[in-house]
């Protein structure tokens, strides 16, 4: 069939940040959907967000409550969320209780009541919460005898579609119950779950089925805040701006470092600076950002190890411009250390800031802190997740500067964390060495894709104004061990004397 001959299915906004991307554009209009999940998984909240995003007085939303949460309690709790607009409740959003029909009558009367309310209100959205209590417990003989569930579901779906209603049945189902007739009839199935790993709980959403749509596959993390559900798509939309970027060089703002990396960081690259604790990684990262500001660019710093106030105080002490840039809206400092963080949530927050500021530079300080902030379940996939994070960010055209802490011993040289080095275009390492009874710092460039760079170790100091790169150590050997040795000068020839 040609494209123009297809019947276009309009998409309704879900009202849930991030969910429309996962759904492949939104909720198909007039679809018959099931929102399934265990207790406390967020089904009722999701349904309310959909209603509040779509309800009008002309096409209201009907919310049928059955035997689950009493309506009064539900209203009491739902109105705590910011999406709950009490001006809409009662007119554009109407709540109807079906407990009498379910408790005292049969499925025919339940259907009759639903249909008569739909005829009366002509709604755009209908929610039945909880559908599970209508259908009864599986295997219950008395229910099986009195209710022909297959027929009921078929007729309900038919009525709802005929009345041009987009509908949602909410129910507590387990994964093994997917042979239930409602799963067959439903056009769309959204599955909400809570995964527990040690002390961590991570909420996940999956679009199991979506007729006429190409939803984003996989499990997507979500969080419930006072604004309701927020979904963090596993593979966010990527705007490929990188090709539009000039392959220019960006100054690091560190005297001597640009020279080491062939004239500056290549725009759009992912750069990693590794080093032991106290080696000045955050200082360099801040200098990188300040250099961008000086060039008229905007930027985002994602902090994982410190509270933003502490980070800012320390950055301001060396670079007072940081505070000024924050005040002027040229820089955003994102604090990402909630419990059970997911990579996608972090990416979503960073991308939002990047888009808001049209940022060109992003600092992630640090990957080590980021890994610790993640829920245990995401630490297992850290490499893969980080690959997506860095890939998505650089695809937008921003230059990503990451710091990573490496433990250092004087008996072995360790330049980077093996987990993350493969995702970066440029790697600069810092390390301590012992020289003449003093602890000194050196840095070197060990990877620079598509560019020449220095292969020398360079001494550097962390001063009150930041990191300053000093001289080379050409007279020393074994610098890599942390204990350099002064190369012996060749003995003067005695011949001819």
């Amino acid at each position, binding site marked *: 069939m040609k494209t123009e001959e297809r019947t276009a299915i309009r998409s309704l906004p879900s009202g849930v940040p991030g969910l429309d991307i996962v759904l492949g554009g939104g909720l198909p209009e007039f679809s018959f959907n099931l929102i399934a999940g265990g207790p406390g998984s967020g089904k009722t909240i999701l349904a309310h967000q959909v209603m509040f995003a779509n309800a009008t007085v002309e096409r209201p939303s009907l919310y049928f409550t059955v035997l689950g949460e009493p309506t009064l309690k539900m209203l009491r709790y739902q109105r705590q969320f910011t999406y709950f607009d009490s001006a809409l409740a009662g007119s554009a959003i109407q709540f109807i*209780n079906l407990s009498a029909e379910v408790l005292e009558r049969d499925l025919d009367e339940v259907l009759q009541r639903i249909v008569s309310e739909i005829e009366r209100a002509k709604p755009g959205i209908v929610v039945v919460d909880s559908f599970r209590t209508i259908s009864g417990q599986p295997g219950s003989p008395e229910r099986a005898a009195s209710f022909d569930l297959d027929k009921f579901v078929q007729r309900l779906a038919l009525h709802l579609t005929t009345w041009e209603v987009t509908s949602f049945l909410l129910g507590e189902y387990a994964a093994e119950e997917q042979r239930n007739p409602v799963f067959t009839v439903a056009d769309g199935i959204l599955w909400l779950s809570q995964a527990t790993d040690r002390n961590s709980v991570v909420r996940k959403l999956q679009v199991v089925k979506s007729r006429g749509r190409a939803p984003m596959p996989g499990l997507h993390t979500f969080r419930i805040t006072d604004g309701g559900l927020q979904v963090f798509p596993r593979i966010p939309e990527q705007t490929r701006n990188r090709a539009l970027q000039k392959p220019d060089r960006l100054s690091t703002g560190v005297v001597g470092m640009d020279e080491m990396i062939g004239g500056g960081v290549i725009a759009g690259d992912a750069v990693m600076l590794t080093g032991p604790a106290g080696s000045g990684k955050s200082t360099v990262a801040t200098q990188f950002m300040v250099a961008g500001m000086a060039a008229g660019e905007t930027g985002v710093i994602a902090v994982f190890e410190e509270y933003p106030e502490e980070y800012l105080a320390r950055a301001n002490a060396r670079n007072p411009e940081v505070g000024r840039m924050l005040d002027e809206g040229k820089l955003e400092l994102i604090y990402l250390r909630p419990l059970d963080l997911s990579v996608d949530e972090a990416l979503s927050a960073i991308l939002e800031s990047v888009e808001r500021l049209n940022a060109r530079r992003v600092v992630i300080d640090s990957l080590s802190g980021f890994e610790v902030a993640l829920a245990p379940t995401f630490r297992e996939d850290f490499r893969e997740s980080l690959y997506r994070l860095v890939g998505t960010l650089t695809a937008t055209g921003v230059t990503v500067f990451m710091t990573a802490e490496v433990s250092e011993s004087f008996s072995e040289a360790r330049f980077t964390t093996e987990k993350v080095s493969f995702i970066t275009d440029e790697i600069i390492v810092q390390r301590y060495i012992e020289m003449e009874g003093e602890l000194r710092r050196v840095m070197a460039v060990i990877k620079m894709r598509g560019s020449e760079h220095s292969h020398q170790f360079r001494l550097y100091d962390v001063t009150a104004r930041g990191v300053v790169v000093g001289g080379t150590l050409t007279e020393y050997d074994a610098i890599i061990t942390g204990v350099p040795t002064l190369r012996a000068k060749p003995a003067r020839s005695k011949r001819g004397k």
Partner: protein
Amino acid sequence: MNTVDRGKPNLSQVQPTPAQIARSLISSRRSEGSGGGNSARGVAAACDNLYRELSRWVGSDGCHALFTRALAEARAEHPALQQIRLRARSDPYVDGVAETIIARGEPATADALEAMLVRLVELLGRLIGDDMATKLIERSLAALEIGGAASDDKQEEA
């Protein structure tokens, strides 16, 4: 005191007090022409209507629970309510009005039932917020008006 159009109450424009909402419910009952405004039977009929309409939203059990508590609270100040009984899923919902009128008199019974209605509105407001409570009751009043108009049409047709 805020003025309320008793013919067509619109409670949402300015947040009325529970007493004003209760008065509106009773007045709407009077405007249906089915009983004196402040008569005990008129107030009881207003309670019946509210129970019926509110049950659509919160379920008959939920609504009965609200009325039961409102009655218990109002009884402390109005001994006239001792003989009043609430019968869930029955019509009339408020029972024992005739006996109470005989025992306590018309004005005392009407005042006591109105006090129960005020308690119910207060309770609903505490649970879901005054604005939402007003909305729900307003919807109930609107449904009553529609129901009243439909019944008038039927009478004319007959």
